[in-house]
């Protein structure tokens, strides 16, 4: 589904990703773990098309499309979704209006008719329940004045509504207390399906107690240095990230 080969990317003159390989099949959930500064967020951003990164080598293909050639909205229209580590506040942009614009953009790209107001509202209410969100959220501006937990839930709520084929969850657990974490994780789990793949980027093993990955990768210094099953996450939890430098030095 997603195939990343030898990906190298810079921020300014500094190389952050240094030849990264990753293969993700349909329905698979891959956790990417690593210390701060290892390139986790850069990977999320490069895959979703954010400005400010220069890809110097390698490729990223999604269902046969060269992702790196596409605008962010084209990637989204193919079925890619990024749950932001820091969801952006959009003062003055009404949530309902935003959700409708997003959903209809995706439907249009797929050649489907726009949803009418009644069908849209019914759909929204159903998805709100999954994330234990109150429908007062719909009247507010996107993320504006939301608490940290609300913002993260709003990300997963959008994911539930937009039903992407491939989701990247960028440190969705950061800043969440245990109750909020559980709600977010339940939301994510409800969206797991044999057709939907995910990358779960996290610093801590904690999230993986709730979202059980099929594979775990350790990202360090811009490369994946180890891959394994979910037991690798437990090992990391025990050993921390200190061993990485020792191993790389060896």
């Amino acid at each position, binding site marked *: 589904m997603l195939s990343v080969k030898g990906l190298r990317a810079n921020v300014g003159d500094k190389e952050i990703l240094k030849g990264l390989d990753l293969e993700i099949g349909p329905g698979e959930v891959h956790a990417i773990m690593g210390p701060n500064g290892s390139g986790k967020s850069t990977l999320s951003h490069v895959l*979703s*098309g*954010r*400005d400010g990164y220069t890809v110097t080598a390698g490729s990223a293909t999604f269902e046969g499309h060269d992702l790196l050639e596409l*605008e*962010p*909205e084209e*990637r*989204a*229209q193919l079925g890619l*979704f*990024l749950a*932001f580590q820091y*969801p*952006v506040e*959009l*003062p*003055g*942009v*009404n949530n309902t*209006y*935003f959700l409708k*614009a*997003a959903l209809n*953009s*995706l439907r249009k*790209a797929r050649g489907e008719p726009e949803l009418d107001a009644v069908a849209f509202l019914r759909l929204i209410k159903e998805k709100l329940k999954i994330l234990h969100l109150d429908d007062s959220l719909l009247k507010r*501006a996107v993320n504006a004045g939301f608490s940290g937990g609300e913002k993260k839930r709003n990300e997963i709520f*959008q994911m539930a509504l*937009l039903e992407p084929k491939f989701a990247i969850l960028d440190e969705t657990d950061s800043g969440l207390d245990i109750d909020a974490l559980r709600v977010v994780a339940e939301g994510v789990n409800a969206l797991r399906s044999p057709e939907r793949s995910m990358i779960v980027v996290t610093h801590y093993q904690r999230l993986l107690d709730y979202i059980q990955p099929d594979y775990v990768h350790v990202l360090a210094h811009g490369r994946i240095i180890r891959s394994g099953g979910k037991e690798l996450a437990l090992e990391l939890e025990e050993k921390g990230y200190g061993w990485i430098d020792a191993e790389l030095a060896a």
Partner: protein
Amino acid sequence: MNAPLHSGLEYWLNAPDDGPDLAWLDERRHGARARLSARALPHSKQEAWRYTSLKSLLEQQFTAIDEPLSALQPEDLDTVLIPGFESHRLVLVNGRYAPELSMLGELPAGVRIGGLRDWLQHDPESLRGQLDAALGDSEAFFATLNSAGLDDGLVVWLERGAVLERPIELIHLSVGLDEPRVAQPRHLVHLEAGAQARLIERYVSLGEALYCTNAVMEVVLGRDAVLKHERLQMESRNAFHLSGFYLLQDENSRYSGINIGLGARWARTDLNTRFRGEQAECVLHGLYLAGDGQLLDYHLDVEHAVPNCRSEENFKGLLTGQGRAVFDGRVLVAKSAQKSDAAMSNRNLMLSEQAEIDTKPQLEIYADDVRCSHGTTVGQIEPEMLFYLRSRGIDASQARRMLCLGFAGEVIDQLGVEAVREHVAAAVGQRLT
């Protein structure tokens, strides 16, 4: 005999002679004219005119309209009416009150609304103390020019405790004539103690005509009076627009004004507020959108002359293409005006490299126990925000438009009538496509 005014401006004063014959009124007109001939034209060395040149305005050689336009039919208004908006509607055509196009409807007891010219004919004495009450012997050049050419306009008078539920809609309709013409309407709004009203003032045109409006509105709010005022400047893109707004507030009165500026080629708006009773409140919101070939210039002058009043000014600007705007806001807190509360903000979103904004919020504070703040921002669309929308599948141009509308929405949402709000949102949306 008066000396001629500079640059042919006496041609702005060729008012028809069929108006009411009132010695005191003539005296006022002549007095204003005498003050003008003694004064130089506004020029760029003056702080208030630093960023705005009169050159293009004077080049047009506008002349006063000598007779009312009678050819309009009520259906000519169809294109300018706001669907679903029910109002006490007054229409001025080229500065002259047009009762045949107006729809005043039934007014509750204690509410009088009518054309200034008629009023001066039938009940001149009631206006004697009202004309120039808020304006005073203003130094403002174009407001004085308006006084010198005083002819027609609108009078709204609410007696003590009168409450008008339905909004008053003042449509200032301009129709292009063979030569470039100027209209100088004067509006008087007087709310006596405890009276309440909503006034929606609209500047519109038939077609993209070239003309000039030089309007002055004087508002006096008595004790506890409440006025909600929305001004929609949607003139022709070839028009020149000057408007002076002069507000006097008594104790515990509330004024809230929303200024929307979308139209005109060259527009200059002066908003002046003076508190003369304590515990009064004045809130001024504004939204201007200046695009190619437009200059929109706003000057605010808020004077805290007495203690314990509150003022808030919140203006936002969207600038596209080679659009230009000026925001010059001044809050003056007099020495005796302790416990004044004043907050002024001006935020601008620049949508092109060629657009220009000159912004200058100023606080002049002579009292020592006040709460005052001012702030100004000039920025672009945040790349973060744009990326967020695009990552959800929304294409870049729609995303930009959503963010601009969101920025403008914070002002548009303050408009109190849904039909008006939608009308303005649609007009702003159209400008952003």
